[in-house]
C-alpha cells in the first residue's frame, strides 16, 4: 500500500501544484490563502496587543472610539479595543473555523462518497438517504438553533457546518466515483486481482482527491461566513475574536452611525477575500479537472 501511494501521490500533487500556474484564478486564490495563513501565524508579532485588552489613554481615560492613528491603525472600538489587533487575531479564528470545517467536511464527504459510490447497493442507499436528510435541514437556521441552544463555541459551529455540508461533497464525489468506477482501467485492476480496497484507494481515490480539495475550499468559505452570520446574530463565541464578532460588535455599537468605516469595512473585506479565494480555487480546479462538472 505504502509503496503504491508513494508513486500515486506525486502525480496528483504535481497536478494540484502546477494548477495555479495554469489558472490565474486559482493562483490568486492560493495567494490569498497563503497571505492569511502568514498573518495568522505571525499574529502575535504583527499585533502584540491582545485583541480584547481594554486600552486607556495616557490621561487614564478609556481609549474609546479613537480614529485611526499610528498606534491604532484602524482606531479603537467604543469599548477601547484595538481594531487592528482584532482584525489580525480574527484571522486565526477564521482560519481555525474554516480549516477544521474543511477537513471534517471533505474527509467525511470523501469517505462517504467513495464507499457509497464504489460499493453501491444497500450501503449506498443508506448513506444517500442520510445525506438527503441532512440536505433537507435548512442550513443557517440549523446552525443557529444548534449554537443558540448548545452554546456558541467554535467547535459547535464547526460541528453544525460539518453536519450539513458533508452531503454536498459526498454526493458529487459519489457520482464521480460512479463514473470512475466504470472506467476500463478500474475493471482492468479487478482482472489483475486487485482487492476492492486497493482499487478504491489506489485507482479511484486519486481521481477524487481534487474534488475533495474543491469541496474543502468551498467549506472553508461556508464555515467562515456561517461563523460570521451566527456571531452577527449574537450567538457567537464571545471568547474568541473573529471577524463576525467584530461585525456584530460594530453593528450593535453603532459604528455605522458613527461612521467608523475602519471598524466594519475591513472585517467584511477580509471575509470576502478568504471566501472568494475558496471560490477561485474551486473554480480553477473545476476548470482543470472536470470541466463538465458544473451545474446539477
Amino acid at each position: 500500500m505504502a509503496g503504491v501511494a508513494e508513486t500515486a501521490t506525486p502525480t496528483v500533487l504535481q497536478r494540484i501544484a502546477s494548477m495555479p500556474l495554469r489558472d490565474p484564478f486559482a493562483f490568486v486564490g492560493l495567494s490569498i490563502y497563503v497571505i492569511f495563513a502568514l498573518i495568522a501565524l505571525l499574529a502575535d508579532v504583527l499585533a502584540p496587543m491582545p485583541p480584547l485588552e481594554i486600552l486607556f489613554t495616557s490621561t487614564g481615560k478609556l481609549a474609546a472610539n479613537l480614529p485611526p492613528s499610528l498606534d491604532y491603525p484602524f482606531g479603537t472600538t467604543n469599548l477601547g479595543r484595538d481594531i487592528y489587533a482584532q482584525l489580525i487575531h480574527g484571522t486565526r479564528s477564521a482560519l481555525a473555523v474554516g480549516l477544521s470545517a474543511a477537513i471534517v467536511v471533505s474527509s467525511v464527504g470523501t469517505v462517504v462518497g467513495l464507499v457509497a459510490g464504489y460499493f453501491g447497493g444497500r450501503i449506498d442507499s443508506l448513506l444517500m438517504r442520510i445525506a438527503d436528510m441532512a440536505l433537507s435541514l435548512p442550513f443557517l437556521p440549523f446552525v443557529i438553533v444548534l449554537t443558540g441552544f448548545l452554546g456558541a463555541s467554535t467547535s459547535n459551529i464547526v460541528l453544525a457546518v460539518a453536519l450539513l455540508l458533508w452531503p454536498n461533497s459526498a454526493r458529487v464525489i459519489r457520482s464521480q466515483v460512479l463514473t470512475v468506477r466504470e472506467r476500463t482501467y478500474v475493471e482492468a485492476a479487478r482482472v489483475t486481482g486487485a482487492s476492492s480496497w486497493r482499487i478504491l484507494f489506489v485507482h479511484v481515490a486519486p481521481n477524487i482527491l481534487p474534488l475533495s480539495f474543491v469541496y474543502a475550499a468551498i467549506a472553508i468559505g461556508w464555515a467562515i461566513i456561517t461563523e460570521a452570520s451566527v456571531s452577527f446574530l449574537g450567538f457567537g463565541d464571545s471568547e474568541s475574536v473573529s471577524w463576525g464578532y467584530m461585525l456584530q460588535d460594530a453593528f450593535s455599537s453603532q459604528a455605522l452611525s458613527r461612521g467608523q468605516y475602519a471598524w466594519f469595512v475591513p472585517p467584511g473585506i477580509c471575509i470576502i477575500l478568504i471566501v472568494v479565494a475558496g471560490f477561485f480555487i474551486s473554480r480553477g480546479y473545476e476548470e482543470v479537472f472536470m470541466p463538465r462538472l458544473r451545474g446539477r
Partner: protein
Amino acid sequence: MAALVELRGVVKHFPVARSLGEIVRGKRPAVRALDGVSFDVGSGDAVAIVGESGCGKTTLGRLMLKLAEPTGGSIAFDGVALGGLSGDGLRDFRRQAQLVFQNPFDALNPRFTIYRAVAEPLVNARIDKAEHKDRIEKAFRRVHLADFDRYFDKYPHQLSGGQLQRVVLARALVLAPRFLVADEPVSMLDVSVRAGILTLMREIREAMGLTAVYISHDLALVRYLCDRTLVMYLGRIVEDGPTEAIVRRPRHPYTRALVAAVPVPDADQSRIALPIKGNIPDSSEPPSGCHFRDRCPLAFARCAEEAPALREAAGGHRVACHLELA
C-alpha cells in the same frame, strides 16, 4: 482436449428500476442479458463470440472472468466453479485468466506510469518485487515493444493507440495466464494499426498455447483469429460451429443475415439483399419462444411457443432452430 472453461445454463439478469405498482405486486422486471447459455471452451482453443450490441456477448465475457456473478447456471474454470472462488483461490484464478479491453485509451490508469501499470498484476499476485523487471521486460518483448526502456516512465496519454493496446496486452501476459478474453480488441484502433494487433494476438496465442475467447461484432476479424465461432442473439446462442463453416455456410437465419450484412472492401461484390427486416427487440421483453422469430423470414407457429434448443447439425454445427437447415 479437455474443456478449460465450462458454462452450463448461464443466466444473467440486470434489474431495471421498478414502478410503484411493480413493487407492490412484487414484480422484478429485468433485462435478460443472458438466457441460458451453455458451451465449453477447450484448452488451447480460440473461440469467437459474435453478435450485435445488446446480444449479451460482453456480459458473457465478464462472467467468464468473474467480473460479475451469474443470476443462474454455473461457470467452471479448469474444473473449479467460479461461484465459490474467494481469497487465494480467486487470486490464483486471476493469475490465470486475463482480459484485453476494447478501449486501450482507457484501460490504463492515467496516473500510473507504463511500468507501474504493467507491474500491477504482479503486485496483486504478490510476486516478489525482484522478479518484476524481468517479467515485465519479457512481456514487453512478447508484444514487440522490445525497446521497453522507452516506455517504462511514460504515461498512457503519451502513447499511440497501437502502442497502448500492446501495453495492455503485455499487462495481460505478464502473469503468463492460460486463458485470455479479448473484448473487441481492435475496434477503437485506427484501421492501419488494427492488422498489427490482430497478427500479434494470433502469434501470442499460438506461441503461448493460450486458450482465448474473442468477443466481436465483426465476423471478418473473428475469421482471422478463431477456429470456432458462437453466434449470439438476444442472450442466447443461436449457432455454434467452425468459423470457416459459419462464414461460408451459415445455417441459422440470423447468422445468414449477419454474414450477408458484412460489407467487403470490394466494389465488385455481389449485393445480396438482406434477408431480414426490423430491429432487435427490447431485451427486457423479448419475444416468446425463439427470440428471433419476429424477424425471421421462416418463422412458423411453433417458433412462438417453444424456444429451440441448440442441437447438432451437419458440418460440426450446432444450431438453435426448429427447422432442419441445410
